[in-house]
């Protein structure tokens, strides 16, 4: 079999977008994925014991999951633990499907707020790619949200607001605060390979109804039909290079541990904000590959996450619904320095879950114990009569927050990762402000009581910034097209390249960026250097 033109490491959203597009243009593409296809036989939301089995079968923390595809992540020096799904579909398998474009200011943080860095592209440059990936992922929403420049919206109508969403929408109208029907990667109609959502409220634990826009459904079958070779249970150990400084391919281990060297013209890393720097750091002695800037692994951003719950008198049936989000608010997203911090956060209104979720310390807080004589009364207040704002806080890039190689090893003896991450003073102030405003929102909507959830560690869904994009090789790892400055045929297409984190769920922008970078690679195919 001839060597592929392009080899992609990772079968999550960025790899899927790239592989599908490259195959459409006739490239020979091989993809190596350390995990396997999701087993939807384990997604049984109709089963009474699903809340017990799902915590195990669809666990987000790779350390807790400790599956065959997982590598250990030492988080002993991190305020937040890293969450991911290592398998075909990547993070989309367990994401909430909250599909948020970044706002124009997210690309111009330095210019507008005097901090961090501008991106080497603008919202307007990325906007056509948002429109296209929204069609591919089957996004639902409503066009012309006033928090974004006007333009083409997603292909499907938004999910219902539901009774809780309507309360909050009316309250925001009275407060004069922004809200909009939520954009979600949740099909509200039959669309391509997707089926319409039936609102079981289990998006975060895999969607067996095939309503969630996950790339194992929306992209990989199409890519494979177009000729992409997707090899699962293939763990990449290193990117190989030649004397000319070009990537020659990778070395990977198969399920049985047998070693394979695979050559390719171009190598694209799409292994997420921890997996990608881990692989780069393992690949070139002594400081890692593509690391002349010294920035590989640095500037890790994970979005501190806040939750505020409102308790209502009315029956809201709040264990059902898309989860997902019913609506979002970007009222306090933009910088207002009078608040004592810069940047902001996005809010998404969500259900609170099934009976077992009413008893947990998150989001209810250890200071609000339900156990003992007040159990039944407390349960009745919470169950079916509550809704919560999820708050995605922008964290600023700091070189001290980083990914390095860990001392632990995976099942093949390959080193894991270690993350060092401290929540900044700016993030702490930002979170406190937003939590108070979110509580105000819920009270205005009729909540007779609000609960600000404790900050917990297990919120690192968004892994960003560890192979920074920029125009200066001294201060960035990749250029505006994802090409590493040091190795001309080695690319990074995942969230590692983000110069700043925005305060949005990142998959929309990860996907749009991947499509944009892929098409730049296609356009430059004749000039692309490859190893002999």
């Amino acid at each position, binding site marked *: 079999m001839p060597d592929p033109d392009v080899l992609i490491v990772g079968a999550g959203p960025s790899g899927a977008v790239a592989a599908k597009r490259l195959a459409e243009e006739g490239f020979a593409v091989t993809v190596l994925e350390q995990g396997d296809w999701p087993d939807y036989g384990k997604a049984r939301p109709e089963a009474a*014991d699903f809340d017990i089995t799902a915590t195990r079968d669809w666990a987000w923390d790779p350390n807790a999951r400790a599956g065959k595809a997982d590598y250990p992540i030492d988080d002993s020096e991190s305020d937040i633990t890293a969450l991911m799904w290592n398998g075909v579909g990547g993070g989309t398998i367990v994401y909430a499907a909250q599909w948020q474009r970044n706002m124009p200011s997210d690309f111009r943080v330095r210019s507008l707020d005097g901090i961090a860095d501008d991106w080497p592209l603008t919202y307007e440059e990325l906007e056509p790619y948002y429109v296209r990936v929204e069609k591919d992922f089957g996004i639902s929403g409503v066009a012309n949200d006033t928090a974004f420049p006007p333009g083409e919206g997603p292909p499907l109508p938004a999910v219902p607001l539901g009774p809780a969403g309507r309360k909050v929408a009316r309250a925001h109208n009275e407060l004069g605060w922004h809200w*909009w029907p939520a954009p979600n990667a949740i099909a509200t109609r039959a669309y391509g390979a997707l089926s319409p959502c039936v*609102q079981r409220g289990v998006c975060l634990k895999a969607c067996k109804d095939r309503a969630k826009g996950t790339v194992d459904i929306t992209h990989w079958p199409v890519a494979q039909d177009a000729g992409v070779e997707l090899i699962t249970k293939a763990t990449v150990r290193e990117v190989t290079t030649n004397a000319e400084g070009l990537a020659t391919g990778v070395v990977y281990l198969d399920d049985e541990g047998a070693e394979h060297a695979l050559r390719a013209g171009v190598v694209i890393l799409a292994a997420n904000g921890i997996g990608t720097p881990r692989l780069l750091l393992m690949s070139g002695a002594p400081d890692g590959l593509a690391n002349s800037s010294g920035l590989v692994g640095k500037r890790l951003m994970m979005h501190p996450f806040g939750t505020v719950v409102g308790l209502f008198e009315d029956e809201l049936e709040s264990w059902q619904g898309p989860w997902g989000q019913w609506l979002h608010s970007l009222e306090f997203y933009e910088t207002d320095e009078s608040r004592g911090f810069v940047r902001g956060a996005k809010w998404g209104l969500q259900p609170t879950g*099934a009976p077992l979720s009413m008893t947990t310390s998150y989001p209810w807080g250890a200071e609000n114990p339900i156990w003992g004589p007040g159990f039944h009364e407390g349960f009745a207040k919470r169950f079916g009569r509550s809704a919560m704002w999820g708050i995605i806080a922008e964290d600023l890039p700091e070189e001290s927050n980083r990914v390095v190689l860990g001392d632990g090893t995976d099942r093949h003896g390959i080193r894991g990762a270690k993350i060092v991450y401290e929540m900044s003073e700016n993030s702490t102030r930002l979170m406190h402000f937003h939590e108070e405003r979110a509580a105000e929102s819920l009270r205005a909507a009729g909540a007779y009581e609000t609960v600000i959830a404790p900050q917990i560690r297990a919120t690192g869904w968004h892994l960003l910034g560890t192979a920074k994009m920029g125009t200066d090789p001294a201060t960035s790892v990749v250029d505006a097209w994802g090409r590493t400055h040091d190795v001309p045929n080695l690319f990074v297409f995942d969230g590692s390249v983000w110069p700043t984190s925005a305060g949005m769920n990142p998959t929309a922008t990860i996907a749009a960026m991947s499509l944009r970078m892929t098409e730049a690679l296609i356009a430059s195919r004749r000039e692309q250097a490859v190893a002999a």
Partner: protein
Amino acid sequence: MTVVLFDAEARAKLAALADALIPAGNGMPSASEAGVAGEWLDAILTADPGFAGPLAAVLEHADVADPEGALRKIETTDPGGWGALTTVVAGAYFLNPEIARRVGYPGRRAIPIDADAEPDWAQDGLLQSVKARGPVYRPTP
């Protein structure tokens, strides 16, 4: 996998702790009355045998002569054990279909979105005031 058996003594200990967590009240039965230490414990352990080891460790060291005191000690000194105990007790309680019925939980039903109905976000002019306020973003400089 090591099979952990819960004998009568262990189940009695669990019942004592579980009733301190979920006592009878408001017309609802206590945890043990709902079978938390009986068939619904078995159901939980069938669903996820991984709870057996941590639960057995908690029960082994618990002094249930003072259930409330034992719970305070577990919560403050053994977060992992506390998590396993409370998940098993609450999980088993709500697995009992009679309990689920009485709290009004019918399970996660399939509720199709009515494609022919006017979306609720389009009703009552809800979005008009948002639109009337105009853009809330800072444009690209």
